[in-house]
């Protein structure tokens, strides 16, 4: 299971791929050159409505999961979503976290190696235990 070509072209997994080398200046994963801007001025008009082409960028997050024992979650989970998704979750049980990780693998095809799952679940359970009940 790999990252889609479009995802690669858009630089989405750059964060994932670069994690091992996330020393400052990991510039090898800079965004591919933007498409030619020639089309961006185009508009379409009809019935008094004019639509303007849009060309923009979305902000990204370089936030990593903090603490020791975060390697597995940092290496496996940040391609599809930023860390904030997990860090805003409520206190959940081990069974709930296990189910979440399995859902990501089975339904959403997250390329998480089975051998990394226990470390990811342990980290998530540890995260929960630091929160107020």
């Amino acid at each position: 299971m790999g990252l889609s070509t479009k995802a690669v072209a858009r630089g989405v997994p750059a964060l994932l791929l670069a994690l091992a080398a996330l020393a400052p200046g990991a510039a090898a994963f800079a965004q591919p050159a933007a498409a030619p801007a020639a089309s961006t001025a185009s508009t379409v008009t009809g019935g008094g409505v004019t639509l303007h082409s849009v060309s923009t960028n979305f902000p990204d997050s370089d936030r990593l999961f903090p603490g020791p024992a975060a390697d597995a979650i940092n290496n496996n989970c940040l391609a599809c979503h930023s860390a904030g998704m997990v860090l805003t979750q409520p206190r959940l049980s081990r069974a709930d976290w296990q189910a979440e990780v399995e859902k990501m693998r089975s339904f959403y095809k997250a390329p998480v190696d089975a051998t990394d799952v226990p470390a990811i679940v342990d980290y998530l359970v540890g995260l929960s235990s630091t929160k107020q009940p």
Partner: protein
Amino acid sequence: MTIAKQPDRSRSRRRLLQSAGILGAMAATFPAWADPFVDLDLPGGPDRRELTTAFPQKGPMILQRTRPPLLETPREVFDRGVFTPNDQFFVRWHWAVIPTEVDVAKFKLTVRGHVNQVLSLSLAELLAMPRVELVAVNQCSGNSRGLFQPRVSGGQWENGAMGNARWTGFRLRDLLDRAGVKAGAVAVRFNGLDEPVVDGAPDFMKSLDIDHARSGEVMLAYLMNGEQLPLLNGFPLRLIVPGWYSTYWVKMLNDIEVLDAPDENYWMKTAYRIPDTPQASVKPGETGFKTVPINRMVPRSFFTNVRDATTVKPGAAVPLRGIAFGGDCGVSEVELSTNSGESWQKTALGKDEGSYSFRQWSTTVTAPRTGTLALQLRCTNTKGEVQPAEPNWNGGGFMRNVIERVQLKIA
């Protein structure tokens, strides 16, 4: 997208203030939007969220997730009127591969499948379709999920994963008629330009029964509150399904497929399912119940000018106001109780912008001399359906619509 950190305006502003040692002194004089953080009221937390202005075509939004974006509308926006401004309308995407560019001269909408004639229409052709306009609430299935108890996983929204806008575009029925739906069609499936990050993962698609699709109410919008849609809200074209949860309002809609068999795709068959029970409610841990795809919305109402711990003066006349919506029909009444639901008094309703719109309500109560002022609020829709006194619960965190409660302080 790059590894290099994007400038983070709110954070750098905070650092600046901290370094000057004046954060505390300044906070009270800053407008609310300049505060870099928001504290939600989620039972058990975590509550703290960044208030971000880093997203294109968007003003200050509560950052629930950067990628793919989940942006919540700040509470105070709902106090300003029934129309939610485009630049503060909530944002929710499933997959991180979202086009950052749309060339309106090249965009095409395809209609295919169980039709007489496959269509590939430009925006110029779509703008020439007979035009319709409708005001409707767009609400995430999981709006208020963060208030569920026991808590459930998913986007931890407070109440701001909803908004109301005037949508301009054309009827889905007119489009389907143009393609000519063949006999035996059972559903219509909608797909947008977003794509999964991972090969083989389920592309986000939703479908409606053929009769619903052809009802004449479902539309495709190219204007939102009179302007083109923000990219993050689905530019250039979004499906509008009045009275139904936002999951069906497919963004960046570019592909419509008429099906001659029920849609078995993941987002219909497995995700966004609710218990087929009253209020879509089950007991935590319960299994073995039948599920159905989430569908119509239910009535809700909100206080917008007070919240828990708002302080009022002893004996004061307290003006109260807020918004309500009927779900899949209009608002019949919005009622307030000051005695824990023993009796209810009607509030005054504002201008009716249509059955699917937010409706403002207002009233005034007198604060007691001491103690607290506990208020409950409920909406009854034009079908006679009223908000329940007890919250529903399901594992998806869907369809919350319990009576709203706030407790004001007297001081």
